[in-house]
């Protein structure tokens, strides 16, 4: 069972390529620091051989962000993270700033249907892509995953919960018949401090079984 997940991860890694180009390195090394570095080295990047992307900034950019199916006209510096735009311009605060190094899953969102850390992604990178946040799972008739979190009390302080909800939704989309063992080993990118793991496992299992234990 675990092997299935490992194979999936391997194939995802292949699809993405090695991931170790300069821009990815900068993205992964702390958003604020990376942003500063990008803006200061813009001139260098422009002339560097092999650079496939055109260089924009450092001046403020006007961009269209598609978030939860709606287009938003946004003005942001090139060094501004997606998380900051979501939270303070679009007032979508479900994604949380928890770690500065994408190590806890608190700011997990979908970008073009792949999970990403909004806190270590620049807003300009998302122009023309489809961003989906935890709020897309709420509303009048909430998705089964957040409802299962309620039924199984899979939240305490709740600050990690939106990240977990997105991670569980994505994991179950890829593994709709996941076993308890697969759930336990497959959702380890998110951290909780209050200790809700036992209840998150139950919530995920409830969704798999399609039942409601409320």
């Amino acid at each position, binding site marked *: 069972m675990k092997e299935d997940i490992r194979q999936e991860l391997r194939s995802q890694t292949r699809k993405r390529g090695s991931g170790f180009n300069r821009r990815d390195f900068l993205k992964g090394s702390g*958003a*604020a*620091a990376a*942003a*500063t570095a990008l803006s200061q080295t813009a001139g260098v990047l422009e002339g560097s051989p092999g650079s496939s992307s055109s260089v924009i900034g450092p001046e403020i950019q006007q961009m269209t962000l598609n978030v939860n199916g709606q287009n938003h006209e946004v003005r*942001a*510096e090139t*060094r*501004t*993270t997606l998380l*900051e735009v979501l*939270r*303070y311009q679009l*007032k*979508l*605060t*479900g*994604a*949380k*700033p*928890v*770690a*500065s*190094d994408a*190590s*806890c899953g608190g700011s997990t969102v979908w970008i073009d249907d792949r999970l990403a850390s909004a806190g270590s992604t620049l807003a300009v990178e998302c122009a023309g892509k489809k961003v989906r*946040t*935890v*709020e897309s799972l*709420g*509303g009048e008739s*909430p998705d089964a*995953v*957040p409802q299962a*979190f*309620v*039924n199984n*009390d899979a*939240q*305490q*302080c*709740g*600050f990690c*919960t*939106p990240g977990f*909800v997105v991670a569980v939704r994505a994991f179950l989309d890829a593994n709709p018949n996941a076993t308890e063992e697969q759930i*336990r*080993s497959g*959702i*380890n990118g*998110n*951290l909780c*401090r*209050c*200790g*809700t*793991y036992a209840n*998150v*496992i139950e919530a995920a299992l409830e969704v798999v079984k399609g039942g409601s234990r*409320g």
Partner: protein
Amino acid sequence: MAEVFWPAQGSAALLGGEHNRVDGLAKSTGVAKYAYDIAPDNMLIAQALSCPHAHANIRAIDLTAAQNVAGVVAVEPLKAEGDEVRWEGDLVAVVAAESEAACAEGLAAIKVDYEVLDHYVDDADLDAATGADATRPAGSNTQKADADAEEDAEFERLFGEAAVTFEADYGIHVITHMCLETHGSTCEWNDNKLTSHLSTQNVSGTAGQIAGPLELTAQDVTVHCDYVGGGFGSKFAADAWGVTCAQLAKNTGRPVKYMLTRSQELKNAGNRPSGFIHVKVGAKDDGFVNVWDSSHWGTNGPSGAPVSQNFIPYVFDPPNRRRVATGIRTNSSPARAWRAPNHPQCCAITQTAYDDVARHLGLDSYDVFLRNLSTVGERAAVYEEQMKLGAQLMDWKAKWHPHGKGPKDGSVVSGLGMAIHTWGGGPHNSRATCKIYPDGGVEVFLGSQDLGTGTRTVIGLVVAETLGLELNQVKVNIGSSEYPASGPSGGSTTVGGVSESTRRAATAALNELFAKVAVQLEANADDLEATGGKIQVKGNQNRNIAWKDACNQIGMGPIEAQGEYQGGVTYPRDYEGKRLTDNGVAGVQMAEVAVDTETGIVKMRKFVAVQDIGLIINRKTARSQIYGAAIMGIAYALFEERIMDKASGAFVNAELSDYKLPRMGDVGEIVVELYEPESEYNRGVIGLGEPPVISPGAAISNAVCNALGIRVPVLPMTPQRVLEAISAANP
């Protein structure tokens, strides 16, 4: 008249049931707003600069360059020239800017000239601390069964006649609170009145802390906090950064958000003191510990206090014991209350010694704990019952093997361990206002807060139970200093405080309503009861009036009634044999682990927690809190610690990628048993936040010891420490 005391066990409509928390969907769909989420238009972002030195004097701070950075709006020093910085990471200046990135750029442009001073951070090594003149005496205390005997000679005699005597060392390192929502606030001013959206465990107590330094009265400050992203004892105060945020908002004329960064959170905003002990134990051949002689030490930061000697050894109180405490001053930030202050450390460094009694005598640890229950005081019988329950759930007797004598599966050995704990959990002071509106609506107001424990839901359940309504018919208003004051949420005091004040307020409101409808029901108000959405004559369901129709009789509304609990003052704790709340619980936990002797990795297999908490209001959230405590215990038993670099004095693992916490795959199976016989139910409501987080360290250490046959003396039991212990035992 509605009765204020709780219904008898088994007769409540809602209390003790399985209820979803009322704010669950708001949290799980991301619409719950925390202090960090409040984002008024035109808001500035503030962040602080941390000192890179463990100990230094500030010669000069030059803010000029930072002030000229594009996007920076305000720069303020947080220290004056000549000030001493006593730990790495302390905050020295703050920048408010248009964006997070501009803020970071502004911080990088601040120039601070430090005179670097000598530092000391090693709290585990008592000799080194003594050599560095970093120790201070923290008390000593001796008890002897023979009070008249000369002390040294008596202890020598007692050790001489013990069936087994051994000396050992145990320890547990400093951990941090690691609130996932860092400390801080978002502040906005309107007409010289301040609203501080503060991430706090104490909405009623912090407004004054902000008002004082700003030369305002508390009435000019509203502290607001609907949701708080973790506290664990570290968010009682407004803190310097809470005041600074308000000041920056005033100076700039704009709303300001000032939250600590992750590393600043770990380095400044809360840690739990360490505990290390050297102990000599003498026990009888049945495992009864007759004599205990210990010296323990540890640090809580610059002031240098160890964990309290009052809990050495923990829960057990042997007839002869001598204990000496020494504090160590370190260049690290001051400790804050961490769930059950003193208890987890004292449990971890002493109930491990009790387990080693079993190891040295070849006895079952369960039997040794049982044998020593005669020294625990009034709750011995409760512990015994809880141990029986725990052993059944763990299948202890079938799984038990003597320490180090279990079967080996390749390089993997398994083992069992247990520990017991105690806590108070009596109520804090609390006031509540309950309103019943002519249209049938019900609201309750308390200046309390829900840390994720389910307080909001518990308050709603108490009101609904009292008024005979459903939970969704009650609107609970908490999280503001404008509501009637309640105590800070710490020490498991909240649920008792708010449930008693709420019950009294709702009962008083209901009795007013009874008076309004008594005539229509042709009954005396004293003979009415509220149940199932109706008010009816007791014992005569046919003479009733529906809730809404009853409320129509209120006239010019609403009915508004107060209820309060004030410790030992307002109401007798024990009235005609009945009470709403009580203080003092037991609790037993058992762990089963697998240890890989080649890699040193410890895996949790199963964890059992048996807990009494008096009358349980919401079984579902109560169980969650125990799951959470068990997982937090697994964290400090196996994963997390603050790592201080002796050479630089720096806290080197202050990011989430380096500060190890268990993930979902690390916690194994957890079984929670709520122990609520009628004798416990009748004690009333008792708090739960602290007790279940106490025992995991000792229980898991004892399980590892049972697996290996040797003690891994210091927590957390990282693979490195496990391998070191194995190689030390096999030189």
